[in-house]
């Protein structure tokens, strides 16, 4: 049973998605220009890539070191081979402490494992505390972006939700009032929760230090107020040393928001010591779930990902369909790579690498230089090995043979496209600006999610010939 793929991929988003996504990706593009001015971007990418490559190459050694250090500090380390094991372990830790309320700070890894549902089944309420996640959870929805989980919702959606929760009216334009409401509602939970659950952005093997990066402060609260802190981490997040951490804690916000520092960056080395008011207990749950199997293979570099979200904003497909379109916990180009990579080939996840135009914008945006477009092609090839689709392959082979020769093209292409153009011309009437917003049958599906250009009255070849002969 696949847990990462939640529903089949679909390309028709909720109506608020596109305007919000276009604003978000526009903001990101501007910030990217700023980022390039702050540092020698190519040099920084190469250093970041080298730090992550070192980590994945030496993964077993570094994980051993991390565990030894953390245990020496009085922390607990748990190994989970699967998502189910990770969820069960976390539920057991909560149950042993009699905890019924946990505060959670945004963790994509817990989305991957489906932790919230597992905790709920065990009688533990897990409250998301990142503003976007809080809204998404209260609506019974799912996050649609690694870093901006509520990017698909409008201020009106949030105002309506808070009005319903509080019984008082909220004005969508007054975002400050919305934020103030969330601050008050969540503050009580932070003070009451027995357990804080977070993800991990990096773990430093050298000293057993967990590094958590955020903008809002909810991670600081989740790792300060409750007496128990449970951190869930994919095993690939470990790095060797503090020098590497110094670089990556700047590269991560630089790639995602164009600044060298995130709102808060926490370096947590063991549980609270000597009467410090932090958590007395620290648990690190190390999740494998398909990750170690990728080492040494053609998709190994996908493990270098630092979850910055840059490839999502850079992707023309993501910008059109939104994160929910992927139907999996991880969306965008990196989701289309790691979901099938970790699943090891299910029909649902094998469909994800098709959600790409292979334009390469993701690879160019990636701060650790993952060759995402190459990996998408590799995954498509792997999917075809599992499901050869012989008829489709034969059709394309025939087409390639015909159209790679001018004689073959003239004999078939000219006639075929002429017929299609005549059919299209009869069925479709574009608007004056040269676009067709909605075409009738048999082209209707094509225009459900996109406008198309009105076709040229005459094919290019015909115009070229007329021009040449004139």
């Amino acid at each position: 049973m696949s847990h990462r793929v939640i529903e089949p991929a679909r390309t028709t988003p909720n109506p608020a998605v596109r305007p919000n996504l276009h604003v978000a990706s526009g903001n990101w593009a501007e910030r990217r220009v700023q980022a390039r001015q702050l540092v020698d971007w190519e040099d920084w990418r190469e250093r970041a890539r080298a730090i992550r490559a070192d980590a994945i190459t030496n993964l077993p050694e570094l994980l051993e070191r991390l565990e030894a250090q953390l245990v020496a500090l009085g922390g607990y380390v748990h190994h989970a081979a699967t998502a189910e094991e990770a969820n069960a372990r976390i539920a057991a830790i909560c149950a042993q402490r009699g905890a019924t309320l946990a505060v959670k700070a945004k963790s994509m890894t817990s989305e991957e494992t489906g932790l919230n549902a597992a905790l709920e089944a065990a009688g533990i309420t897990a409250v998301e505390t990142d503003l976007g996640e809080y809204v998404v959870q209260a609506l019974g929805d799912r996050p649609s972006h690694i870093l901006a989980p509520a990017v698909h919702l409008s201020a009106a959606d949030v105002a309506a939700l808070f009005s319903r929760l509080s019984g008082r009216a909220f004005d969508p334009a007054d975002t400050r009032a919305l934020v103030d409401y969330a601050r008050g509602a969540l503050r009580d939970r932070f003070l009451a929760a027995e357990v804080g659950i977070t993800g991990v952005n990096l773990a430093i093997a050298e000293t057993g230090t967990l590094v958590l990066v955020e903008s809002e402060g909810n991670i600081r609260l989740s790792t300060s107020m409750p007496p128990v802190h449970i951190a869930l981490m994919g095993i690939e997040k470990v790095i060797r040393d503090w020098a590497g951490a110094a670089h990556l804690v700047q590269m991560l916000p630089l790639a995602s928001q164009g600044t060298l520092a995130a709102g808060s960056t926490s370096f947590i080395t063991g549980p609270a010591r000597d009467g410090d008011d932090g958590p007395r207990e620290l648990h690190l749950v190390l999740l494998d779930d398909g990750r170690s199997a990728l080492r040494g293979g053609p998709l190994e570099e996908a493990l270098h990902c630092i979850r910055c979200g840059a490839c999502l904003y850079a992707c023309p497909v993501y910008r059109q369909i939104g994160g929910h379109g992927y139907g999996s916990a991880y969306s965008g180009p990196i989701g289309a790579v790691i979901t099938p990579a970790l699943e090891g080939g299910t029909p649902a996840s094998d469909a994800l690498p098709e959600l790409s135009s292979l334009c390469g914008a993701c690879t160019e945006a990636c701060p650790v230089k993952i060759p995402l477009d190459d990996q998408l092609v590799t995954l498509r090839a792997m999917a075809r090995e599992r499901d050869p689709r012989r008829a489709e392959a034969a059709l394309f082979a025939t087409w390639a043979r015909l159209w790679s020769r001018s004689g073959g093209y003239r004999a078939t292409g000219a006639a075929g496209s002429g017929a299609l153009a005549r059919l299209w011309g009869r069925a479709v009437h574009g608007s004056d600006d040269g676009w067709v917003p909605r075409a009738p049958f048999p082209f209707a599906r094509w225009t459900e999610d996109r406008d198309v250009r009105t076709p040229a009255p005459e094919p290019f070849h015909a115009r070229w010939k007329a021009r040449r002969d004139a």
Partner: protein
Amino acid sequence: MREPEGSATATTAGHAALRTRFGTRLADLGGRLHEVASLAAARQLARELIAGATVARWADWELDEIVAAETPAAEAEVSLIRADVAVAETGAIGFAHGVGRSRGAGVLPARQIALLHAEDLVAGMAAALARFHAAGARPPSNVVFAAGPSRTADIEQRRIVGVHAPRELDVIVFAS
């Protein structure tokens, strides 16, 4: 950013450039930088900024003589802390929590005032982290770098005041 070495004048100029850079970055992030000549002046300015609001403070001696009474962190309006380091390139302040330096007092109140010794301002993150981590030594249990007040862009991508951590930040740099 590398400071010229050799003469005391060059070092002073280099430090002034660091302060300017830090102040600009902090302002970009929505925080405020105040520069004063002495610890006494820093305490005086802190008293003026607090102006009768309730305060949760850390036990650092530099923070003495500013407020007469303390309020539990969950109810206090102002968090009064001492930063261990500040990073000119990023605008962030860094501080270790520990005994006498409560995590709650550092994060729960809506406003934060941080005192910083001028010598604790460094150029980059690598130098800042070196303050907390020396090879072979155990780092503090919790170190936080906070860049400006808390922010969020979770509602329609508009960057607004944050949800959880302090939403106003004044950094007072004092020379010795």
